[in-house]
């Protein structure tokens, strides 16, 4: 008998079989994530416009153009404030809500079902509702505050202009994101909390732990994988959320609420400068990447 060819060895066959099984997943991820990402990279290094199919390679020119734009820095700052601020608020509110929903009370199932409404409503509809509530003249929030004599009447200096004052406008768009997202956080947490065996909690109680100790030392470590996945999703969704800002303020006034997705959309699609729009949107990538690596590495460590 001759020498056995390498690909007929058991090891090679095992590898081949393994990679064959893996191939559909690799192909799937490549097509869904890799191709669009590579296309974004291509666009960001070209002078492509919406109406000109023939694009020239311009190297890092579009990234340089973004860095020369003063509004870009405002957008980066706002994006970070928006993402981190909304993330913290959603975490706090979501956790509180999850614990409340864990308690037995009459109509708990109905309340749990109602909670998902903000998350399931079409975003355009719910944001338009908020736009009315933040209206400078007919805001129901302002009218309620005025009736309670917490602020003056319409036209008085302390009448809040929710979408017009720089700090308040950023808070308002962040608030709507929190309103829409915190039920999701609560549901994710609730799923985690219900998976914690009650006997472990009872044992911790017998050991004399306080609620905060049980939460920090028993519950959080046990539901950490769920928390990390939830946080990862929430960070990605918040960082790339265009709709709320676009519909409420379109980045105004004077870039007070400008975030990277609105700047990229207005530059790339509305103004037609696809290359520069793609470059601006790719700045989201270095913002997201460290957060994702950190979360996924921590998650992997905890699995062992």
């Amino acid at each position, binding site marked *: 008998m001759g020498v056995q060819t390498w690909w007929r060895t058991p090891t090679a066959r095992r590898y081949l079989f393994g990679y064959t099984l893996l191939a559909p997943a690799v192909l799937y991820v490549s097509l869904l994530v890799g191709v669009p990402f590579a296309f974004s990279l291509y666009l960001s290094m070209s002078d492509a*416009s919406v109406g000109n199919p023939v694009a020239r390679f311009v190297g890092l020119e579009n990234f340089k*153009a973004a860095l020369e734009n003063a509004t870009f820095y405002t957008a980066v700052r706002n994006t970070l404030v928006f993402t981190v601020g909304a993330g913290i608020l959603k975490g706090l509110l979501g956790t509180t809500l999850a614990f409340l929903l864990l308690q037995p009370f009459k109509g708990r199932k109905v309340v749990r079902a109602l909670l998902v409404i903000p998350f399931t409503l079409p975003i355009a509809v719910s944001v338009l509702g908020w736009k009315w509530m933040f209206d400078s003249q007919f805001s129901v929030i302002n009218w309620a505050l005025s009736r309670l004599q917490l602020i003056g009447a319409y036209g008085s200096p302390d009448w809040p202009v929710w979408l017009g004052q720089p700090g308040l*406008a950023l808070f308002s768009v962040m608030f709507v994101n929190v309103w829409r997202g915190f039920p999701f956080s609560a549901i994710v947490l609730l799923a985690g909390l219900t998976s914690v065996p009650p006997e472990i909690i009872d044992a911790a109680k017998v050991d004399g732990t306080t609620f905060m100790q049980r939460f920090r030392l028993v519950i959080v470590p046990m539901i950490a994988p769920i928390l990390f996945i939830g946080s990862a999703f929430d960070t990605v969704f918040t960082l790339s959320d265009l709709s709320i800002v676009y519909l409420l303020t379109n*980045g105004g006034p004077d870039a007070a609420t400008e975030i990277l997705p609105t700047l990229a959309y207005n530059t790339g699609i509305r103004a*037609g400068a696809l290359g520069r729009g793609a470059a601006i949107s790719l700045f989201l990538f270095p913002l997201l990447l460290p957060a994702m690596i950190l979360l996924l590495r921590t998650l992997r460590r905890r699995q062992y």
Partner: protein
Amino acid sequence: MSFQVSDNEGGTRMTDPRPAYVDPRTVGRRGFLKVAGAGVASASLLTMLDARQAPAQIKGTSLRMLKWSHYVPAYDVWFDDFAKKWGEKTGVKVRVDHIPHLELPARYAAEFAAGAGHDLIYFVGQILTGQYYRNLIDLSDVADNLGKKYGGWLESSKSAGQVGGTWFAIPDFFISIPVLYRKDLFASVGMGEPKTWDDLRNAARQLKPKGHPTGMQFSHCNDANHNWRALMYCFGVKETDPSGQNIALDGKEMRESLRFAKALYDEGMTPEVFSWDDASDNRFLASGVGSWIHDAISAFHSTRITNPKVFADTFCIPEVAGPAGLKWNVGEPNVWAIWKFSKNIPAAKEFIQHIADNQKEAMEASLGYNMPFLKEQYKKPMPYLGKDAKLSTLQDQEKINAFFGHPGPMTPAAQEVLTTFIIPDMFTRVARGADIEDTMKWGVGEIRRIYAKHKG
């Protein structure tokens, strides 16, 4: 050999009825037949266009068109019915899609990338003719025919429809943004009809303490782009040179208009204007609070319905003059265009002609909103406007009409300046107390950067 003749702008027109000069020494028998045949075909087409008989070739075809959802919903109802009836008459199966106007640019980007979509498209506000002209069909034959039939096109229509002297889009109508003011409130401070921006400022200064401020958007919305440009142009500001290639904003006129806006804000407005969208001023006027606004006549119509008492005292003037007597009104243009990949170019062209021929009906249906681009369609009394004592003032609007980029055309660079809201942001900064020179440095720098990118 082709049958082409030069027009007076140096371009060529495939269907120009004028005979081409052909050197008899170079024409053979076949050449003669070709030239003569082309001449007869062109003459027939023009005769047909003049008589408005739909060509038989479009019968049995289908036409998909994309439009925005008009500010006057009744107009869309009328338009859909109009298109349907035209389809029945010509044997064309018509489908009209309406989407919000802010979604149109994204839709066109997608259609262009896919190389498929609607047969007949529409640009509104953001005029994308300059972006897409390489992929749009030359509509010069339609434009020339309509121009000839209706006394020529307004000068501003070239900015909306032409690129390099060729018509790649056919202007349909523009939305005028006049001044709507409360006659009773102006009278209460001893003022009559405002004639100048100074009159408006004086009125606001006196009426704000009485609970009737004024307002113009200092935010990222369409009206902010129109209104502050109207003020700028009335103050003599030129956004670009007539070629549209070089910016001309950096002058004393721009500084004066910023200074004026700051005073107007301080004396006559409240901070709510920083949060306004396109409809906020409508509500502001209809609520009875606003003393005057600078807005399309939708505000006039909505006040008629929601607050008849206020409406009785609301009047309309086309525009007020700047310090040197200049008057420019910045409107919102609407144009038709046809993709090169359109599956039904003949029907699309035919429909454009048909709607232009029925502009009177369209204007009536839009409650005077749709201002024509063709000179003869300004014959008084104009539909709807001519019958309304208050709106009849708008019948001379064509004389003061301008668009963004003025006096240059709406180029892709001007478009980017518009969509990134640099001009409203300059006014916002100054209104909030920023130094005018610092603001000019920032704004002009940003605009220069954009123009440099488009040139490069």
